[in-house]
């Protein structure tokens, strides 16, 4: 069993954890978005409430939730440990840094990651905790969403969400293709396709998420 510890505490093993959990979370974003798109159906929230009720009561979803939380935790904890190690690897910095070097989005992964983590806590508190802990009997999930984006934070809750999605887009733009590189999947034929797919994904998915608060704030009529 020594090989397990050696592999996953090595630099490349840690990259493997980042990339596997990252790809898992990328997949989760798609399923989450597909459910959220029900918010755009013009039925005053019937479909979305039905879906949300299933999501909060189904035992299968409960089990998957544990896996999801584990995915987040591994990604976050591993990311923090790597960032600390990386900071320590250059105790004395440069006086002058010039920027021909790397791709823009790749430079701020710990920072965008940290912001997304703060966003995540606020997001879970606004919706999951509200319906599971604070008001367990409240089944009007649609009402909670529309109220939050129309009135929350003195009318600025929606803007926080849009900002979070912009930073998520930055994080995904590097993260998507980086996950493949870490797995050793760099190929003359396929890497350009992966990069294009990653760029598209990092724009389309956060934009679709961001459309929700924008819709409720500016286009929704009760």
């Amino acid at each position, binding site marked *: 069993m020594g090989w397990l510890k050696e592999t996953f505490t*090595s630099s490349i093993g840690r990259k493997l954890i980042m990339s596997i959990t990252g790809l898992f979370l990328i997949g989760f974003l798609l399923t989450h978005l597909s459910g959220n798109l029900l918010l755009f159906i013009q039925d005053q929230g019937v479909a979305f409430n039905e879906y949300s009720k299933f999501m909060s009561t189904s035992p299968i979803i409960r089990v998957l939730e544990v896996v999801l939380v584990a995915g987040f935790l591994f990604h976050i904890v591993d990311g923090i440990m*790597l960032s600390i190690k990386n900071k*320590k690897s*250059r105790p004395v910095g440069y*006086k002058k840094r010039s920027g021909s070097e*790397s791709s823009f989005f*790749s430079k701020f992964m710990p920072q965008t990651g940290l912001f997304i983590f703060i966003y995540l806590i606020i997001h879970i508190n606004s919706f999951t905790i509200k319906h599971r802990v604070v008001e367990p009997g409240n089944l009007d999930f649609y009402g909670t969403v529309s109220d939050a984006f129309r009135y929350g934070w003195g009318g600025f809750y929606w803007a926080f969400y849009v900002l979070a999605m912009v930073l998520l887009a930055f994080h995904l733009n590097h993260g998507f293709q980086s996950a493949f*590189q870490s797995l050793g*999947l*760099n190929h003359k034929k396929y890497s350009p396709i992966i990069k294009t797919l990653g760029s598209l994904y990092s724009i389309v998915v956060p934009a679709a998420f961001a459309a929700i608060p924008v819709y409720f704030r500016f286009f929704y009529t009760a």
Partner: protein
Amino acid sequence: MKLTLEVWRQKNSEDKGKFETYTLDNANEHMSFLEMLDVLNEKLTKEGKDPVAFSHDCREGICGSCGCVINGRPHGPDEEVATCQLHMRKFEDGQKITIEPWRAKGFPVLKDLVVDRSAFDRIMHAGGFITVSTGSAVDANLMPIPKAIADEAFSAANCIGCGACVAACKNASAMLFVAAKVSHLALLPQGQAEKTERVKKMVKAMDQEGFGNCTNTGACEAECPKSISIRHIARMNREYLSASIASE
């Protein structure tokens, strides 16, 4: 050419070090960067000051001895050259040039611009070699190697071990160097005997030297004087994961 040089001065590895500013009136655009430093040192010596220590050997970009961060870029503003191949024509008359050593925990500063790169030697000792039968040399081209594979191996073998990849990386990671060595030998038939053990041992040695981790930013390949691609890092990841997880 008139130049203002801001140079990192550090007496030894214990010294804290600081920047000193010098002016140089008699540089010209035909000089190499190291020749310009030679002129500066001549001036400092005549003034009874300690000359600036810097590493160099072949001065034609093949030995990997030289290297410093010039105006924020490892090996300076030119593309695909080591510091010794950089020419002063790449600078403007009257320009201020900031010269710093490689900065990394794995490369402690010994004096001024000279860093201790023996970490790279230790990584090589861990597995950067092949075993061969001694005796008379075999005929050239006895072992058929497809051109594409030979080219790819050669693109990794171009690495001169200068350490610019570590200096450029925001995490001071040595992955491009180690990947170049692993990739070069893993591609060729001569490297097959130690293939799985080599990558594990070299990565372990790299981790022990205190280099940071790779976050796939690509800064290393942008500054590498030999344009070594991060494709080789992907190959090393692949080699490592299959050696650790898939092999018996």
